């Protein structure tokens, strides 16, 4: 088939005229590696600093009641776990093997994105739940000192805020994060299906 010969000849005419110098390429590789490391270190430091600030501020206040400490711990867990997941500090969950076959690789990407989707959904619920409960427990001690009028006002405000976050901000947050992920999953699945279509 002459078309085949032509196709190969045409195919081979394409060249990247400006092949980057090996040194330049390796410099780039090194830069990527350094950047990844710096990013990871910075994120870990931010996490540690957040915990340190919360602990220092929290434990300086006298905590007559055990609920204050529990509340504080819950808030810390909420913030730390959210930041850890948001920054993908758990690389083993998102690791992919680029040396496998295309089919394996696509399946891996789909699995990772699904995991991501699930974690997002679950994490946002855990974050809102723990944070609300934490704020509530933490403040019990201080509310007790208020007059009844202020106490009622405080509870209305707190529960109002919790309701607003849970029914308004949370679903919007989940949706905003899920949309691009779902789009990618859909596209990956469509490509993966191409491999299944063969007869």
């Amino acid at each position: 088939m002459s078309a085949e010969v032509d196709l190969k000849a045409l195919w081979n005419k394409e060249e990247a005229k400006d092949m980057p110098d090996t040194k330049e390429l390796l410099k780039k590789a090194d830069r990527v590696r350094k950047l990844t490391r710096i990013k990871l270190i910075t994120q870990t430091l931010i996490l540690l600093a957040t915990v340190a600030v919360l602990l220092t501020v929290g434990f300086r206040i006298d905590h007559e009641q055990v609920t204050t400490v529990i509340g504080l711990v819950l808030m810390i867990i909420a913030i730390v776990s959210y930041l850890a997941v948001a920054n993908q500090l758990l690389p083993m969950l998102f690791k992919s093997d680029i040396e496998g076959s295309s089919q394996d690789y696509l399946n891996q990407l789909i699995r990772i994105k699904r995991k991501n989707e699930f974690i997002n959904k679950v994490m946002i619920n855990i974050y809102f739940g723990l944070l609300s409960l934490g704020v509530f427990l933490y403040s019990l001690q201080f509310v007790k000192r208020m007059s009844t009028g202020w106490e009622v006002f405080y509870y209305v405000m707190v529960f109002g805020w919790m309701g607003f976050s849970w029914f308004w901000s949370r679903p919007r947050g989940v949706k905003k994060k899920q949309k691009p992920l779902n789009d990618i999953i859909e596209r990956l699945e469509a490509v993966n299906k191409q491999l299944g279509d063969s007869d």
Partner: protein
Amino acid sequence: MVFDEIYKTYWNKVFRICMGYVNDHDWAKDIAQETFVTIWQQLPKFRGEAAMGTWIFRIASNNCLRQIERQNRMPRSDMPEQIAEHIEHDREPQVQFLYKCIAELPETDRLIISLELEDVKQAEIAKIVGLSETNIRVKVYRIKERLAKKFENYER
């Protein structure tokens, strides 16, 4: 095989495969560079379980597939014609047409035909893509037929 040698031998081959996938010179160059960065990182761990070429083309193909995650990049075909023409000025029209046709195929077909045109054996393509050799043979035949038809219409 040391990295320098691999780089020199495979740069154009990898570039062409990426070009067949995206049909955008700069984008293809980026993917090819990413591929060689991975090769450089993974080379010390390469145990020779697969042939060197198969291993390299697997990384290149998977790097191409990874582009599905990057939605923001504007595909070549979506560029205004004037800009596209300006970039294309030094490429032969038939070569341009071939790469355009390939980049319009479904993603996995683009990889299969690119590897075939790169003279990779069909048994190796099967290992790279993860399909059986028979499947690859059928797919290659159909894709070539499709391309031949497009060329027939193009030349008329």
